């Protein structure tokens, strides 16, 4: 897992950019350690195409020493005539999805993500994780 140097700065903020025909819903959770099963703080779920601004982690409190996990769930409601067309729509998601963090010592940083798409459900899940040090 990659790390981002927040130092003792606050607030640390999250922004998600994406260009898609689907409805994306994003979820962000903070954990004390990588092995925690329960999060201690979260951002209320939001559609990043409608709420495009920066969102504070943990209400603006210092978050150094924690783990940030960001997930986005997409559901397409347009009709796809075949899987090939669906895959092209997912390629657009892959090319435009940018979960960014800001407020640390290093300035804005785009968090790497992994993606899995499901043609049978017309859905897609993206996940990012980063250590805040």
């Amino acid at each position, binding site marked *: 897992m990659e790390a981002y140097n927040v130092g003792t700065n606050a607030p640390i903020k999250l922004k998600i950019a994406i260009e898609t*025909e689907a409805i994306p819903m994003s979820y962000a959770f903070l954990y004390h350690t990588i092995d925690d*099963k329960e*999060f201690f703080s979260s951002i209320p779920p939001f559609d990043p195409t409608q709420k495009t601004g920066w969102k504070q982690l943990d209400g603006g409190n210092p978050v150094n020493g924690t783990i940030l996990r960001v997930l986005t769930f997409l559901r397409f*409601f347009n009709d796809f005539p075949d899987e090939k067309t669906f895959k092209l729509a997912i390629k657009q998601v892959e090319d*435009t999805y940018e979960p960014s963090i800001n407020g640390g010592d290093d300035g804005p940083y785009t968090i790497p993500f992994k993606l899995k798409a499901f043609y049978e459900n017309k*859905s897609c899940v993206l996940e990012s994780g980063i250590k805040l040090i």
Partner: protein
Amino acid sequence: MTYLKFLCVLVTSVLVAQSDTNPTAGLKNLAPPNSPAFVLMDIAPSNIIVPDNIQAFSIQTINAFSGNSKDGLGNNNYAVEFQPYWYVKREKMNFFKYNNLKTDKPEGETISVNDYTRYNVFGDVWKKASVSLALMDGTFNVFEVPQSFVSVGVRTRLLTVKTKNQIAEIKSQYTGYEEFMSSPEVIAVFANPSLSLSEINTAINSLEGYQTIVQNFEQSIQRKPFFALDVAVAYSHFMGDKSQDMDDAFGRLGFWATGDLAFYTPTIGKQSHVHIYGVFRYLRDGLNLDPDSGELRIENTTDYGAKIALELDKLSFGYEYITRDSENNNEERSIGSIRYKISEAFTINGGFGKNFVSEGTTVVLFGIQWGLDFDSSVVLDPNR
């Protein structure tokens, strides 16, 4: 001419290569034979062009069985069609913009569903634009033996109008979906770090109420617009035949406009509509023999007519009547068409009736669509 043939083969090859599609293996990406490049030559089951649910890339083919051998379609009738929208990077795309809803709120501000107060009637022009290219053989009532033609066509939806009720329904469904996806049971799925991405997807899709919400939402989105105006243009070039001392020549140039008034009839089926189409087509037709000189000559014709169609969930059938005013005589096309989706993988398209070039005899056209990447009911290649 050699260069033109080479160019056509090259373009077709590039498109097939870029699509990762092997047309001989599994016959995937086949589509109904309704591209403008086919319709221009009067060999498609329907003369109405509707740019709906077109594949990002498709290969189309058609076979014809006619009571009059003079119609003489050969066996080499193929077209490729693709939608540039799916291959170009999106800019400022979101669910509402894709569904033609607009807001006056400045960029960067938080937007709520109620801020989408306007509808972009031209919003489908780029999304539904497609380009087609066809190679076909036929006598077309002019030649003694089938001759080769190359056609290129473009189609799109110029105007889309949805009613206030349709727009309100989409907004309402979005709000319901957003609320559901913000509920504690959904958050609990995403908050669980031990779940893989596949397990998260399965868990969300298994939640009570999720399937009902998304199915209702899809039905609202996929309701036909109250009015749509589709346009298309196509050109077909006669390739010539050196063995018969015939040079390549102008074939046909056509322009279509189709207005579709759709009435939603939920009492018949969940996605059923009665359509009333108005059709206009201008045709500059080079496939006419001068009786005196025996040479090909060009005639200008104008078609206008109407079609009524009942579209049920799996079955659709219709009747179209089109009059063609030409310089020398007037003709009619009176054709019934039927389409039945047996499964997601197998659809039959048919047309029957009197065509412009059939000189009063019946014409029957038949097209099959299968293997659309679902659970295919027809597997031609045992290795796939």
